[in-house]
């Protein structure tokens, strides 16, 4: 059991270097197609309908299902096409294979693995000449990152996320100096942990930036600030590559 996991993980580490994805990358360990499924259609392409880029907790089911659509060469939906869902070790799909419905869509509920990080899931449909596939990225948060998510939701998101939700109106548009979304890897990846700690603890002026960013030193503990940083690092797109991590040589 452990042996199998290890080899899969090793393989996935190899993919990881290539894909430059921080966490578990796609090593195709999906289940075999369900023999009971009898495809009645064949598509040429597969596109995402919904369910990508979700953020969930390790080992738990994602909130929304992943829905993909199979199209033919003209871009018309193909019903009855076989779609298989695959992902790295630890990911489970319910179902792992399905036929597209009358609107050409296939839906699966996804449970992410026990390790925090980015998961690359793949939906594959056989196709006429060669299989067509689609990659979908989901993120699993560990304990510390999830704590950060809860804190961010309470203290930070209303300024940092330009999107409003049903429960909460965003304050982003009201700010003269615009903050960056925590998903903005291009900006945040360039900031060191020390700089992030400084701006969160002592406010914008600590880095000679706007005082619209308040100081949280007396409101949040250091552990909470670290949790917030861990959370932003986990969300970063493009992914955050911590400097100095040493990978084993081959």
């Amino acid at each position, binding site marked *: 059991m452990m042996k199998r996991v290890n080899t899969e993980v090793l393989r996935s580490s190899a993919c990881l270097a290539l894909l430059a994805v921080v966490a578990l990358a796609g090593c195709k360990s999906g289940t075999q197609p369900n023999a009971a499924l009898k495809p009645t259609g064949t598509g040429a392409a597969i596109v995402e309908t919904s369910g990508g880029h979700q953020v969930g907790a390790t080992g*738990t*089911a994602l909130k929304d299902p992943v829905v993909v659509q199979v199209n033919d060469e003209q871009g018309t939906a193909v019903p009855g096409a076989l779609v298989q869902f695959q992902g790295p070790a630890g990911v489970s799909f319910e179902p792992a294979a399905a036929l597209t419905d009358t609107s050409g869509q296939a839906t699966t509920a996804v449970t992410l693995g026990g390790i925090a990080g980015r998961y690359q899931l793949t939906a594959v449909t056989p196709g006429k000449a060669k299989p067509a596939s689609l990659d979908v990225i989901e993120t699993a948060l*560990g304990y510390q990152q999830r704590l950060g998510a809860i804190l961010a939701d309470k203290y930070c998101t209303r300024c940092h996320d330009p999107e409003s939700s049903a429960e909460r109106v965003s304050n982003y*548009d009201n700010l003269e100096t615009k903050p960056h979304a925590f998903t903005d890897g291009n900006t945040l990846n360039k900031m060191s942990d020390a700089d992030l700690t400084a701006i969160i603890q002592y406010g914008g002026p600590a880095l000679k930036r706007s005082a619209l960013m*308040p100081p949280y030193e007396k*409101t949040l503990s250091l552990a909470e600030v670290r949790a917030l940083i861990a959370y932003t690092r986990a969300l970063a797109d493009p992914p955050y590559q911590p400097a100095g991590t040493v990978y084993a040589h081959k």
Partner: protein
Amino acid sequence: MQSIRKYISSAWQALFGDPVRAFGVVSLVLLLALAVTPTKEHFSQWHSYQRKYLSLIRDRGDAVSMRRRFEPGIHQIWMPELGVVDRCTTCHLGLSEASLADEHQQPFRKHPAIPHSVDGFGCVICHGGQGAATTVSEAHHSERDGEAPILPTRYIEAGCGQCHQNAMAGTPQLNLGRTMLARYGCVRCHAVTRPDGTKMMPTDHPPSLVHVADKTTREWIYSWLKDPQAYAATATMPNYKLTDQDASDISAYLISSSKPQPGDTSAASVKNASAGSATNPADGASLYGQSFCSSCHAVQNAAGNVVGGDVGPELTRIGNKVKPEWLNAWLNNPRIYDATTPMPHYRFTPRQIATLADYLHSKTDADYGANVQLAAATPQQIARGRRLIIDGGCAACHEINGVQTPQNFAPDLSTIGSKPLAQIAFLPGMEHTVSTYIVSKIRQPRAFGGAVKMPQFALSNAQTDALTTALLAQTGRSRTIPDTLRVAAAEDTNYQPAGHAGKLMTELACFSCHRINGRGGDMAPDLTYEGSSVQRQWLTDFLKNPNTLRPSLIRRMPRFNLSDSDNKELTDFMLAVYQTSAVDPDTAPSATNPPQVVEQGRQLFYSKFACQSCHIVDTKTDKGYIGPTLTQVGSRLTPAWTYAWLKNPQALRPGTAEPNQKMSDEDARALTAFLMSLKGTSGKGAKQ
């Protein structure tokens, strides 16, 4: 026989025939015997993991220091007071190695950051499994007597819940599960005792059925019983999978046993008041909006989304359910029908009642229950209905005439999380773990046999997982943990304000939304120190006509038609009683200040502290949306409160999102002076 004996004696001769030979053979045997343990160790699983670990770290930049920290052999964490002998770290070698944080090869990954150290608690306290084992299968997957596999990651918060009975920021799933055990009525049938001996108490409010015939019809009860979620998608009442006959008989008993609510004459008077003049549906919708009914009640909109709060029942098809007379009486004063309802007594005028009632009655789905036709009930049906009610345990939640509340109706779940596997009747093909058992029981209780009484709840997977987590935390081990490690549940107090003001607060159901002295909801601000916080005139005006303090809030304070004397009574009471010594009027800045100090405060507001990012003081220039609008704060808050708040907001309201800015006394005084100068340009607050 002969030949075997001959063979043995010749073999004996060959090995031990002469002393030298005998000595050699004995030595060899001894040597082999001595080599058994090291050899076994060499080929043991943990040893191979240790070798793998060494080769994993060999080429890393920090290999030298990691190699220095590595100790060969079996590792053990022993904590007698916790009953822990954990050898997990024999293979999980990188648990504290920072540079293995992203290592994918298990068992070498660094443990994610949590508030506890491995040295302090070991592993199995949280993860379960067999700590003393030294093979993966025994440690992780044992199903032997008294042993159980490790807790799946998705329920790991159950580990925390063994000591922590309180709700923590880092355990949302556990918190939700515990809330649901109380909210969905689980603990009404199942006893759940915490390790400290306190019982989990229900927080739901299932309606009493002693006057149910006043409220609704037998046909509606029938349809509801058959499928509660068909009436309201958000209904928490489970589905008992009743046959048509069962539902018909139970509804027959409930209607025939119902007694009319005595002494309610208001319904008739309301009816007379509205008679003749038709109400305007648009008025009804706007009164519904102004009264902030949607803070507590949800309605499904045209797009199919359920929008609104979940304190009260969903109202999408309320017109199908309630009788017009009952609705009038309820809107007039809900406390007559149900003395403990979370719904406030709004003091609507008869005209308002008629308007709202007509509006609610328009929420009728013509298709719902359209083909339910029940013949008049026979005495046998009614008697059978009563038996079904007793068998089904309906009275565990609902008060029903002629049926007693059952005691210990369902199995005690206090230690379900460590239920021995041998005592569980797993279904064929089911994974043999307690977690799988609990999940399946919640998801499809009736799959465990026709005699199972547990009904079918309409829960999402996330809700089922949350409940499972909360139940898995109920272990035998949690009861043997030293008291010093336990964190008690923060339960509501039974605080009840005294006197006429107290009676008013009950009638207005303040505690449904506000928390005071440890009792009440969390939808609106905690009012424990409200008397120190606000000025008299403002409070009086606010109770009369609550204007919105936070424009971004969706749930708001409704308007009650309080009489002036009741208003004064409440204001006096709150100002006198809800005080804190942390706010000291004697040392605080005064309400009026020299212009240069006010100006200094204004500078601080806009530049150093940039308060405009969340607050509006000037509607023309500021746009901040997060905190309350401060255009009239000088007429609302006391200077003493404002000063104390600026110095340390969390001391006055723990958990507030307002950051503590570490303000100097001087800055806080100047800012207070500025804020106190903001009396607003219009409105009642300005004149004083």
